[in-house]
């Protein structure tokens, strides 16, 4: 047998296995889908298995009395995981084998696409497709594009939400970055640095909703003369001051909520900036000191310029998080008392009032505002060599 013929048969065999693999995968997914969709799938699997191995008694027991719900759920989880992990593995294996069939040069050109392909398809399906759908709704639903634009940019309630968003961005971002920077600088000289950092960092581990619930109690208000169960008004009462309805007084409520966000985000700013400060070369600092620079001067002229990139990254990251703020407002005031923000308004329009066009237009507007910030953020990350 010549080598060429041998190569061809091997190739043919590989092709068959690869195709068979793909078909098998398809079957597995179809089977798995039916299994997960069907009522009492796990029961069926177990009864079938028991019957196969001859344990009729066991099979009957499950058939008549059903299955322990926990066991059933576990089994569904296992099947889903097998399909998920095993399936992805299988897809890569089989498609890779398929690519092998092509001549070397084509294969080399094709392979990256095969590996990136599934991710691109997923992203397209879960990100691009909904984004396009949102755009179409914004242009067509609820009286059309003109009406929706008018709503987003002239409706008094929405304008107040935009105003609040600006307040959030300015005060929230500046607050988080400045306090984070101050902490990072000061903590750099403290003996128990790690411990001090942990305390500032801890809130970051709390979910937005959790934080909002906690702070709602901090701000809780009861009429004067009643027992104050809110922390702040409790303190006010102890000092003999009138209780303040923090969450109901416009502007004060938005500022109070921004404090929650700062409390959450300062830890993140501190950690990143602290790392950046430590990366400032000691020689540079020593040189500045030898030249007679005071501490504030060293900080302003040497440290700050060195960590400019990190500050920008932190600021843009926090800014994006703040632009999307929803949970804190939803849980505490629900947007009442002029404390609404765009994301909450969007949610209300969609879920409560079923105005999909208006909600979509708000989403599009928010997206357009976020994009430039994202661009700055990504560019800056690239400049620093983080990410690719």
């Amino acid at each position, binding site marked *: 047998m010549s080598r060429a013929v041998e190569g061809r048969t091997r190739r043919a065999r590989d092709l068959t296995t690869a195709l068979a693999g793909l078909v098998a995968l398809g079957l597995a997914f179809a089977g*798995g889908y039916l299994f997960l969709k069907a009522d009492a799938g796990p029961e*069926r699997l177990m009864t*079938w298995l028991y019957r196969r191995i001859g344990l009729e008694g066991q099979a009957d027991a499950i*058939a*008549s009395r059903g299955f322990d719900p926990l066991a059933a759920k576990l089994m569904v989880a296992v099947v889903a995981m097998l399909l998920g992990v095993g399936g992805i593995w299988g897809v890569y294996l089989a498609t890779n084998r398929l690519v092998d069939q092509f001549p070397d040069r084509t294969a080399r050109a094709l392979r990256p696409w095969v590996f990136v392909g599934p991710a691109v398809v997923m992203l397209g399906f879960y990100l691009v497709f909904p984004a396009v759908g949102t755009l179409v709704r914004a242009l067509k639903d609820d009286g059309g594009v003109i009406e929706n634009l008018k709503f987003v940019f002239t409706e008094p309630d929405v304008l107040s939400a935009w105003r609040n968003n600006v307040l959030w961005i300015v005060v929230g971002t500046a607050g988080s970055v400045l306090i984070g920077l101050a902490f990072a600088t000061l903590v750099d000289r403290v003996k128990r640095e790690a411990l001090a950092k942990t305390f500032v960092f801890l809130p970051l581990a709390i979910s937005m909703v959790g934080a909002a619930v906690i702070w709602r109690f901090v701000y809780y208000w009861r009429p004067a003369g009643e027992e104050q169960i809110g922390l702040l008004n409790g303190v006010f009462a102890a000092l003999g001051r009138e209780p303040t309805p923090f969450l109901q007084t416009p502007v004060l409520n938005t500022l109070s909520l921004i404090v929650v966000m700062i409390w959450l985000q300062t830890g993140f700013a501190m950690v990143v900036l602290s790392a950046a400060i430590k990366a400032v070369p000691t020689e540079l600092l020593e040189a500045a000191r030898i030249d007679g620079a005071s501490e504030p001067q060293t900080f302003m002229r040497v440290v700050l310029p060195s960590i400019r990139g990190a500050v920008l990254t932190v600021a843009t990251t926090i800014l994006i998080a703040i632009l999307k703020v929803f949970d804190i407002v939803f849980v505490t005031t629900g947007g009442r*008392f002029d404390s609404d923000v765009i994301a909450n308004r969007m949610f209300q329009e969609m879920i409560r009032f079923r105005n999909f066009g208006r909600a979509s237009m708000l989403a599009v507007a928010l997206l357009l505002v976020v994009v430039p910030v994202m661009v700055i953020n990504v560019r800056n990350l690239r400049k620093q060599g983080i990410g690719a």
Partner: protein
Amino acid sequence: MRRLTPLVLVVAFAVVVGACADGSSTTTRAPSDTTTATTAGETTTSGATETTAAPTTTEAVATGPYEFLDRAKAGEFAGTEVEILAQWIDAEAANFQASLQPFIDATGIDVNFEGITDYETVLRTRVDGGNAPDLAQIAQPGLMQSLASEGNLVDLSGWFNLDQLSQDYIASFVDLATYEGSVYGVYFKGDLKSIVWYPVEAFASAGYQIPNTWDELIALSDQIVADGNGSPWCVSMEHGDVSGWVATDWIEDVLLRTAPPETYDAWVNHEIAFDDPAVLNAAGLVGEVWFADGYVFGGTDAINGTWVGDTQTPMFDAAGPKCWMHKQAAWIPEFWPEGTQAGVDSSFFYFPPIDADYGSPVLGGGDMFVMFDDRPEVRATLEYLATAEAAKGWIDAGGFVSPNQSVPLDWYSTYPNDALAEILAGASTFRFDASDTMPAAVGQGSFWAGMIDWVAANGGGTEEVFAEIEASWPAS
């Protein structure tokens, strides 16, 4: 060949799983698809009868008007699950559970009831996400209509004994659950909103009389202020994403007392403007109470800031009532501080008429159940909720009026049910909560939001607030 093993495993797995899902094996639980596909009346659990020792001999169970309920009581759906979602929490949830318990005990159906806050948002999200409960409580006919128009609800026509339903319920309760000629809901709970709670003993010892007219009500309020006895009124309306409904109740109740019922109906159906002079007049009268100096405990900040369930708490202060009158439906005692008792610590009087021309109207509300998934056990549960039997548990717990007229009157012999029945009997007109019947964008949207703004502005700019709500009425 070694590199092939994963593929072999995948193939084997596919065969096993496929075999299990194709439905050839015998199990008790038929896939939901097959049970719903068969038409009403011939559903039998497929293939189960041979393997299970179902007590098919006990067939002689009394038959009632509802087919699926009878079959459920015969044990046919034992072991199945039904999920119910409602906005009742705490004591109300316990009371509803008490109403459900006899059904659970009699049928073996596992009814999972969950009461949650931020109810409408959660329900909406779950329905949109394809994760609707089997049955859900709905307080607003407007919400039922929008759910029905989107095709989310199960139509009762065809399988539900609607003759029995119209026999047990007055026509308007059936009408409120009807959308485009089809019935989608069953009313379970009624609410009487035109009542005012007051502290019985303190009232007597202060020498206050129960007011029978609006003027007497205002005079009494002034007297309480003049006596230095605190605030005459407990008013507050903070209630998460449904905040604002207390104000709409007040305005509706006053409107019914200052305008003919036809005006009220025209207002609900938007045949007159939302900011019609009659409505502005009613709002003005409400404002006379809400925004008068010293009238409301805690002022407007408390109206917007205190949770509805806590509104009346200051009335039970150890040092004597800090506020004396609270207009709220009969369920409010569930939220009073521990150790207080309805009828003893606080009782209620009828919210007095204003204009004698319009008699003694009563404003009410109610909760219906709608169905999202058509399975026999869900049908049985809904049928149960339409019976007088289902109301028993909650009636015994108190503060419950069933819209079901077949409920024997002697069940209501205890307080406060007897007093409520008396007010109902004396009513010259009965109207359903207007905001609940308006389109959701107004009734649960701009109307509530407008009321919050109105209170925050201390009752200022009434005309602007109502004009803004008028502008928000959906075009169609």
